[in-house]
């Protein structure tokens, strides 16, 4: 933030990344009501970004389903916003996504909201450590995220649903159990296996996107450059 200018009355209003701080605005115009200024501190960009990111979670999930691939990719929006806009944005996207998926497919999946939060944390950690700088790095972080998320979802699925959560995972679980594997182990293997594949692909995709972002977006979200190792 640069304050003041070389001459009296010659000022400069500068903005740091996507949050509209008004450091000089107040000084420039002291008659402005303070409530207005406080209101402007809310970032409209985040407000514009969160709905589309949630929509990305829902819509990409559907697109991938139409391709009949054994993955979901329904957390791309969460990962992306966590990397670009940080904790608050990621948390909002994850939570609203889960609430909305509940509206569409039933609220029994609400406990899985903790998975969304976990993904936000892993994505943030990856972003700080240049985790999207290359194919193998993103893959590594994706596998890590899949193992963590899969284990947690196995716990939820086992205790809340007796291993039945619908979709491909349950079919895998059933096959494993019929092959003589204990239910608890089957649920864990099934969940972790599908989640590792899903999150690995999701992190690789987000990494590829971040490394090839246009400059105007990179300028808006300085964290993206760090995440992509630039």
């Amino acid at each position, binding site marked *: 933030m640069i304050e003041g200018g070389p001459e009296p009355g010659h000022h400069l209003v500068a903005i740091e990344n996507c949050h509209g701080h008004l450091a000089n605005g107040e000084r420039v115009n002291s008659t402005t009501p303070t409530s207005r200024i406080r209101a402007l501190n809310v970032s409209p960009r985040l407000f514009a970004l969160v*709905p589309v990111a949630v929509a990305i979670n829902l819509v990409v999930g559907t697109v991938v389903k*139409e391709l009949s*691939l054994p993955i979901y990719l329904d957390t791309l929006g969460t990962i992306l916003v966590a990397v670009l806009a940080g904790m608050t944005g990621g948390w909002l996207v994850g939570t609203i996504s889960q609430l909305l998926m509940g509206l569409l497919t039933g609220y029994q999946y609400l406990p899985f909201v903790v998975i969304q939060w976990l993904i936000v944390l892993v994505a943030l950690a990856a972003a700080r450590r240049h985790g999207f700088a290359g194919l193998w790095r993103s893959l590594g972080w994706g596998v890590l995220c899949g193992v963590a998320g899969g284990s947690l979802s196995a716990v939820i699925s086992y205790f809340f649903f007796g291993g*039945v959560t619908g979709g491909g995972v349950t079919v895998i679980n059933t096959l494993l159990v019929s092959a003589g594997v204990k239910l608890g182990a089957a649920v864990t293997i099934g969940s972790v296996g599908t989640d590792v594949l899903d999150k690995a692909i999701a992190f690789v995709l987000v990494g590829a996107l971040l490394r090839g*972002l246009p400059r105007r977006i990179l300028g808006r979200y300085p964290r993206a450059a760090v995440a992509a190792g630039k």
Partner: protein
Amino acid sequence: MTARQPGLAERAHPFTTGTIALALIALAIILPAPVGTLALYATTILIAAISGAGRGVRVGVMTVLPLWILLFVLQGILGDPPRVAAPWGGTLSAPGLAWTVSQGSRLATIITASAAFAVAFNAHRFLQAAIARRWPFGAAFLVVATLDAAERLGQQARWLREAQRARGVPVTGSLSRRARAIPALVFPLLLTALTEADDHALALETRGLMLPGTRTALDPPQDRIAERCIRWGALLTVVAAIVWRIVP
């Protein structure tokens, strides 16, 4: 064209339908299985049918049917001993069967209540109710704007599929061919979302959506005394159920 008469659920205050759905979901977790949850599932179907959200029941059944089948296979057939004789010969797991019935009715209730609520949900009425009740506008905005964005992006995804096919990107065929179509279908969606969020942020600011202060509810849905009573009743039922389950 003959306009369909809106049912009770659609005419009710959005907070009422929301409260009832939440209460049913809470009760599905609280009430003892299988008798309590089975009765609750029946009640849920009844409420949905009476209030004109019968489509929710159908959606619920369609969603829950595969779950029941999987539950039956995973728990009933492959479950732990002791086993009981099945009517068609062979044996079934007794605790697995019990789990299937109790957990199955729980899930069915939750899914049906959610689906019926979704059928009756009207974003416009919800927003107006939220404004009239002075709910935090940001929260209401995020819900309504997200539903709008999901519809918009859904359309764009369908269009994108056509556009990329017209550019020669195959979306059918072998696993690797389908997998390689992902970037062409997903990247433009993400890139336009990111670039357009900037322009949309300008609109949010210039149209006054970021302003503090009170907003005008244009046509707030009516909130009758009877509906308030129903909401309090639903809440009290949930509290009573909790007390009943905790107190020995």
